[in-house]
């Protein structure tokens, strides 16, 4: 008869090997996303309750914010009037030039219902999927900035790789100087814009937008703002620390660009 106490090391090694071999077979990307589809409702309930509690806790703060926003609204209304004038002028000029209207993007609102439980990956799960015509590679924005892109889609759920994840790399340009660099995620530290020319004119406070190169993201989406610059350890390039425009840690609602 097998005594578990005596054969513990053998049992353990066997279970470990079996578990790892099995998991690599079972936990495929498709299996994970299909299982997450089942968990969608409990995850929505829990995340919804957490967001409500968070909102209640910051009620006073929200009240102040509301007051400020109302004041800003009056100013924005004036600006809107000017933009309407500009839009009408633009339309007239387009007609004159026989300019064809490009395909307009549609936005699908989605709720962030879960994150990576280890907290060591910047990925989130949103409550929209193939049913809402969400596809792999679609851009996800929040407020006025880039948040990430869809990497997996289930029927009613999708996984989004946030721009701050270590695995996220894409091309960006400085809006003012048009200097181009590779932007990588640096988790809680934000983003790093690498391979900027040593003689580039990028300064602290410059806005960084997507370049549209390599087809990862569309051109012209706001990424963030340069907070510091330093030479690369090799001395061949400059690296810029970029603060994302979107607060990745407080992401609750997002828009998927379809």
């Amino acid at each position: 008869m097998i005594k578990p106490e005596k054969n513990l090391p053998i049992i353990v090694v066997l279970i470990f090997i079996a578990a790892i071999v099995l998991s690599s077979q079972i936990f495929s990307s498709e299996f994970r996303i299909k299982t997450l589809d089942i968990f969608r409702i409990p995850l929505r309930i829990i995340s919804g309750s957490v967001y409500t509690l968070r909102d209640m806790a910051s009620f006073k703060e929200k009240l102040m914010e509301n007051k400020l926003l109302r004041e800003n609204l009056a100013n924005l209304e004036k600006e809107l009037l000017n933009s309407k004038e500009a839009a009408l002028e633009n339309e007239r000029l387009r007609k004159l030039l026989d300019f064809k209207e490009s395909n307009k993007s549609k936005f699908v609102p989605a709720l962030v219902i879960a994150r990576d439980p280890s907290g060591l990956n910047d990925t989130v799960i949103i409550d929209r999927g193939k049913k809402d015509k969400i596809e792999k590679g679609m851009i996800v924005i929040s407020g006025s900035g880039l948040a990430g892109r869809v990497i997996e889609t289930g029927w009613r759920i999708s996984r989004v790789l946030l721009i701050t994840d270590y695995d996220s790399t894409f091309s960006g340009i400085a809006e003012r100087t048009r200097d181009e660099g590779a932007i990588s995620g640096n988790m809680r530290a934000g983003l790093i814009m690498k391979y900027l020319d040593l003689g580039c004119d990028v300064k602290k406070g410059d806005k960084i937008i997507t370049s549209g190169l390599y087809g990862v993201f569309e051109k012209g989406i706001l990424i963030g703002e340069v907070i510091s610059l330093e030479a690369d350890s090799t001395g061949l390039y400059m690296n810029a620390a970029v603060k994302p425009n979107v607060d990745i840690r407080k992401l609750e609602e997002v828009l998927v660009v379809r």
Partner: protein
Amino acid sequence: MILFIWIIILGFLQSATQLSINFLGLFAIFAGLKKGPLWGLFIGIFIGGFAEILSSQVSGLNLTLYSGIGLVAGIIKQNIYYREGVIMDFLFSFFGMLLFYLAYFAFTRTAQAGVLFTIIFSSIISPLFFKLIDADTPSEL
């Protein structure tokens, strides 16, 4: 059965919020510490499998790490040293979490300073957490 329900509920909570507490890791350490190395391993496999679904990491990583810390906690308790008490629970949780994150960083070749808070907060609440879970789960599970 109750333990598994707790794991799922707190796993969802950990995933839906951004608490600096690794409940899933604490469950694995608890199982190894209070129920023995084999239970630590089995429950660690269940927790790892659950985390695999929620995570986007390479498949097998969560499973290996959670089952690993459950097993190690159980082996140390059984073969090296353990005495019931708050300090022991804290130390086992602290070093268990440290081992978990060091292994995670070694596998993924990435490091984050923020996990230090997770290790500390998780260890601080571990004695109370273990007491609550222990009272709620029969010894034979």
